[in-house]
């Protein structure tokens, strides 16, 4: 099965995406990740103002198959969270790169972030 991996985003080994086109970085999970998880039924988000250390578990995504921790790929302060997904966790499945984003964080893109091609290679 092929998965969407937009060229203008950066990716991590643990299947998060990073959008660095604005001042703050927006984080979500990839199309591949949502497909592996299956129907998402519950999401827990960090709080605005939380200061996170890269690699820390900061959100939880629960599907009918599994509960997964989401690790922030970036150190910094959480500036916004996507409240809409708390009521509509299915957005992670239907629009993982759009309305299904998780949170925004003030920080630096990590050096080991992957581009779309590298990430595609990894999930194949």
């Amino acid at each position, binding site marked *: 099965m092929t998965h969407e991996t937009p060229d203008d985003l950066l990716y991590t080994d643990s299947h998060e995406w990073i959008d660095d086109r604005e001042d703050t970085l927006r984080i979500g999970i990839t199309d591949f990740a949502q497909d592996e998880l299956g*129907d998402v*039924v*519950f999401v827990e988000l960090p709080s605005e103002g939380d200061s996170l250390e890269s690699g820390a578990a900061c959100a939880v995504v629960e599907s*009918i198959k599994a509960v997964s921790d989401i690790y922030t790929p970036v150190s910094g302060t959480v500036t916004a969270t996507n409240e809409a997904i708390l009521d509509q*966790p*299915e957005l992670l499945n239907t629009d993982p790169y759009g309305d299904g984003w998780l949170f925004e964080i003030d920080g630096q893109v990590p050096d080991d972030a992957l581009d779309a091609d590298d990430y595609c290679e990894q999930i194949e």
Partner: protein
Amino acid sequence: MNYQQATWTRETDTGEPVNEPLLSEKRTQTVTYDDVDLPDELVRDELTLPEPAEPEVARHYTRLSQMNYSVEHGPYPLGSCTMKYNPKFIEDVAALEDGAIHPDRPDEYAQGTLGILHGLQEYLAEIGGMETATLQPPAGAAGEFTGLLVARAYHQSNDEDDQRREVIVPASAHGTNFASAAMAGYDVVELPSDEDGRVPVDALEEAVGDSTAALMLTNPNTLGLFERDIADIADIVHDAGGLLYYDGANLNALLGRARPGDMGFDIMHYNVHKTFASPHGGGGPGAGPIGVVDELTEFLPDPHVRETEDGSFELYEPAESIGKVHGFYGNWLVLLKTYAYISRLGDGGLKDTSAMAVLNANYLASQIDLDITYGPFHHEFVASAGDVDAAEFAKGMLDEGVHPPTTKWPEIVDEALMTEPTEALSKEQLDVLAAAFTATNRKTSDELADAPTTTAAARIDQTSAARNPRLSWQDVGENDE
């Protein structure tokens, strides 16, 4: 020949099966209140309550029970869960009038009850190789939590609680082990299995240290394998200053033959519904006593039962008790059933139980045509559904009139079917179960995708159930799409 659930209710015009209506959908009455002495925002002035006649209620629940599947219907080989048949005499014992005593009755007027509780403490201690056992925790998982609080109290008494922050749990352990450790305030360190499915001694040696509070282990483990290195494992944990916790879920494999205490375990729980007899939860009361070695008895929950010099029994609070984990001395009638079962079986009966549990699992495994990588196993085995999704395989088995095994756990086996027939199945029943495996194994993926077709309810829409739970009958019908 196989069992099929009843479908009692059908649409009048199409004959399509439909769910048995809820009692409140059958007949209700609206009651109104006006002068209630409560703040307005807390009061509903109208309440709609179900109002069926007694025969309607009786029929409703009988129908539901016939649309169901339980250990009273047929084989129920959920691995690790030990879903065995509970002999009916335990219910008779629990229904005796003398059993219905108020838990606040003074000790001197409750000697019979206290005597039985004390007797059970002693039975369990003897069976597990422990010094004594507390009967208070209301389930196996609650026993784990209690056991870890005891471990913590022990480390506190040695001034080591600040440093011993980690509980080590093998990757193949039951989810409650991780959860109990976290609830007791510990950091969980996960230990992967070695290639032969057991605890890797080298990796354990590296994982233990000054920060180790305890290692939680079940033996035989969830693959049904005996942890052969248990003596070394115990030494490693003890040398590091940690305690060894035994998850008793698999004790039915060892009953009367080997004791966790003799293997070096310090704390253990007994799932009385698995190893002995008492119904499996189902929302009702349960019991998960824990046994401890001598050094830990003073930390047990309050109250504990002891025998006095004149041979009577009394409740007391152990000197450094962790306090209460449940009301009074636990769920008395469940404990009484356990006591009755152990007394009736006696030493010889308990020994036969473990022999039958192991024989049944090995016979069943010999009759089915699926890969079983890990062995030699005891009372349960983990087969692989191979290229088939284990959950689909399980749905297919439902159409064969049996309950399927536990699926997808432990994760070390691909598409795991964790199978435990229990000691309570006859050879005929084991053959029925084997035939269900064989028939399911022959099904095409399309057939499996449609399964189950013969049960009272087909596939449940788990996603909608989780995203949009209807927690009151009043919501029924409201969110129908």
